């Protein structure tokens, strides 16, 4: 197991280099550069050229890449062009908000998905399953920004139950920690609900499918034939095996989850990394784009690794090291 983890971690290195190369060149190929945002009628082109040179953007892209790589290896991800802040600091300020949203949504999704998927599979073809099928597909079929805005209109504008935007109330700057935590939860409700509805649908489909698959297996039939109570069959024998694909899918859905989070952060003014990254792309803030992309890639890759480890824990039959 340890060997496996180490090997997988080592495999990350070429993966990350590949990602950094592709993204570095793609973003530099996009037209324009950060000084475009500085344009107003009083700014002379020479000024922009001077600032460009100050940023080191007058050198060939390949030179810039190696320069960047060299600094990254020393732990320096560069400085954001517009804030003058180190990229690492800039991301560190935003990452917790994104992680909070993503992890909570993932946990809630799992908590809801597993029983729903199982129940739906057990009651296959019955009303609950039918209703649930329609509901979960509908959840997958709604554009995320549309769902977010609808929920905002209903719960924030009409009902005033939840704040429409933001993460904290400024009034509670000096409040005790649990009040602050409650405040964040209050703010988090709508973005979390949106995200959960979107990922819930897909995940529970997988859970249901996996459960159906398992229920057809011989050993389940054997267990039933042995006269074991249905509850024991389902929870002790079937569920354990049906969880395997769920864990894998969870790992694989991380990339999509990131993308979804970015759009949701924009709608709900959630101060997360996604909004930062999308803005960085539009403003050609190269060091920041690279920082956000690399960090997301590392998180996604680690997520997949964790999923694989979880896989091994759920199913001890799977061994690593060989093959």
């Amino acid at each position, binding site marked *: 197991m340890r060997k496996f983890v180490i090997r997988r971690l080592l495999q990350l290195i070429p993966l990350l280099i590949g990602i950094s190369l592709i993204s570095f060149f793609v973003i530099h190929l996009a037209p*324009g550069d950060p000084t475009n945002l500085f344009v107003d009628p009083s700014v002379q082109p020479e000024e922009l050229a001077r600032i460009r040179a100050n940023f080191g953007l007058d050198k060939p892209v390949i030179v810039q890449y190696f320069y960047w790589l060299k600094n990254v290896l020393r732990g320096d991800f560069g400085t954001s062009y517009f804030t*003058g802040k180190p990229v690492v600091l*800039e991301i560190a300020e935003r990452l917790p908000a994104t992680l909070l949203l993503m992890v909570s949504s993932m946990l809630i999704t799992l908590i809801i998905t597993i029983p729903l998927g199982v129940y739906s599979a057990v009651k296959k073809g019955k009303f609950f399953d039918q209703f649930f099928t329609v509901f979960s597909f509908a959840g997958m079929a709604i554009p995320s920004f549309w769902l977010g805005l609808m929920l905002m209109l209903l719960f924030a504008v009409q009902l005033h139950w939840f*704040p429409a935007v933001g993460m904290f109330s*400024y009034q509670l700057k000096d409040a005790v920690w649990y009040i602050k935590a409650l405040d964040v939860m209050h703010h988090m409700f709508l973005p979390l609900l949106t995200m959960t509805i979107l990922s819930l649908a897909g995940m529970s489909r997988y859970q249901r499918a996996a459960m159906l698959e398992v229920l057809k297996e011989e050993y389940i039939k054997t267990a039933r034939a042995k006269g074991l109570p249905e509850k024991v069959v389902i929870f002790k024998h079937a569920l354990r095996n049906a969880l395997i694909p769920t864990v894998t899918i969870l790992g694989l859905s991380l990339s999509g989850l990131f993308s979804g989070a970015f759009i949701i952060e924009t709608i709900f*003014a959630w101060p997360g990394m996604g*909004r930062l990254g999308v803005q960085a792309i539009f403003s050609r803030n190269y060091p920041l784009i690279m920082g956000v992309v690399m960090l997301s890639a590392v998180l996604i890759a680690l997520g997949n690794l964790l999923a694989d480890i979880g896989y091994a824990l759920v199913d001890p039959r799977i061994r690593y090291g060989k093959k």
Partner: protein
Amino acid sequence: MIFKNRIGKFVISILLLLSLLGCTGDSSREIKKRAVELPKLSQMDPNGTLVLALGGEVSILNPILSTDTTSSAVEGTIFSGMIRFNKHLEPEPDLATHWKVSKDGKVWTFYLKKNVFWQDGHPFTAADVKFTFDSILNPKVNTVRRSNYIIDGVPIKFRVVDKYTVQAILPKPYAPFIVHAAMSIIPKHLLAGKDINRAEFNRNPIGTGPFKLADWQVGNHVIVERNENYFGKKPCLKKIIYKIIPDENARLVALEAGEIDSAGVPPKDYKRMWTIPSVNIFEYDVLLYVYLGFNLANPIFRDVTVRQAFAHATNKDQLISLVLKGLGSRADVPNAPVSWAYADDVVKYKYDLKKANALLDQAGWKLNSDGIREKNGKKLAFTIIINQGNKEREKAAIILQQQYKKIGAKVKIRVLEWSALLRIVNAPKGPKNFDAVIMGWSLGLDPDGYIIWHSSQYPRGFNFIDYKNKKVDHWLEVGRTELNRKKRKATYAKIYQEIAKDVPYIFLWYPRAVSAISKRVGGLDPNPGPAGAFLDIEDVFVIK
């Protein structure tokens, strides 16, 4: 059966939800305008908090480095300059008590207030002023304002005369300097010898302004607090909170929910805003015009008759009513009516399809069988480029496409991301690769239009349409060295006449800004100038 019933119930509840959302729509078509009702000064809360919204992130709080309007909005409360501009766009003393310009117009002397302190208690002196401008002129500092202080390649010199007197020595008379002299001043004692681009100061600014930074939660909010030692009038507000809400609709939602005190109102929400009893509506003109610019290097548009024809085919009233819902007025000159230099004694092109068609016939563009004009086998077809994300310009392009169809022109629309569009119009060499573009110029406080219209500003510069007119060139040069306002205004009037005759742009409209501000906010100007209702922030208060 049960199945159907339950589905039915589900459908009904969905419909209910939709109708709930539908109900909020405004059924009445008429706008009932009402006068602004401001609270009385006696109702003032001496420890009040005002909550404003910002449309973007605050990137950096250093006035010489920031380039975005959100950062400048916050900086405006923390820093002060030697002078500032009032609602009529007239210069007023701020950190300076008064200033003098030498006879030859080259030496500007500013006399500074004494007993002014930075927010950390350090005294403010002429050395800070010199340091600010020297920093801007330092090529290592990533500021775009440097060229404002360089005239014909020669930088302006700043000289400390004594502790409270500072001089700017210009290589030649330059009227727009007054605007750049209003630059916010940064403290020398905190920044001298440091790399300003990356200084910690940019996150923890210290100014001389009415408010000081109290809390900055990146991406969420910025809080400024009253500066009790402010040299000017003591602010009525204890705190201003700037919430960051990037989405325009979300800002309006937040205003209606009472989470913020003010929001800009886009035309589409204008009518509905009047139905909300808890807010006052302020309308004001801004220093901005929107235009359709022709690439004069393009053979179609080289002919002034063709450009005039398009001017006559442009129904500006329809544009204003559809794009701005009436919140704007037609433009005819390259300046806005709120500017002191505005003059509109120029040729105006009335919407007249007959005349437009006649002009095109005269120019040799004949209608072919499929309703498109042709000349020497070339079709009267061109592409309007616009930047992505600007819904107003997008709509304007669609409407112009329809309008020009009526005179036999085939218009295509191409939407480009902002940087991509700039790369085309700012290409270092001509001819530039576009036919026509819809853009807007946000005008500075000074009416100087050298950078936009002077022939030396092509291809490098903002005269990207390749406009050349010797007379205009000459008057532009005269205009920026003339310090007498009256004479200057007459010069600009001549420039506008000439430009209107040449039709390099079709001036489309002047937008009218609308703000909705909660009725709990007082001390506002009911008829604000272009800088908006919060210009005199010291006077603004909220009720208990």
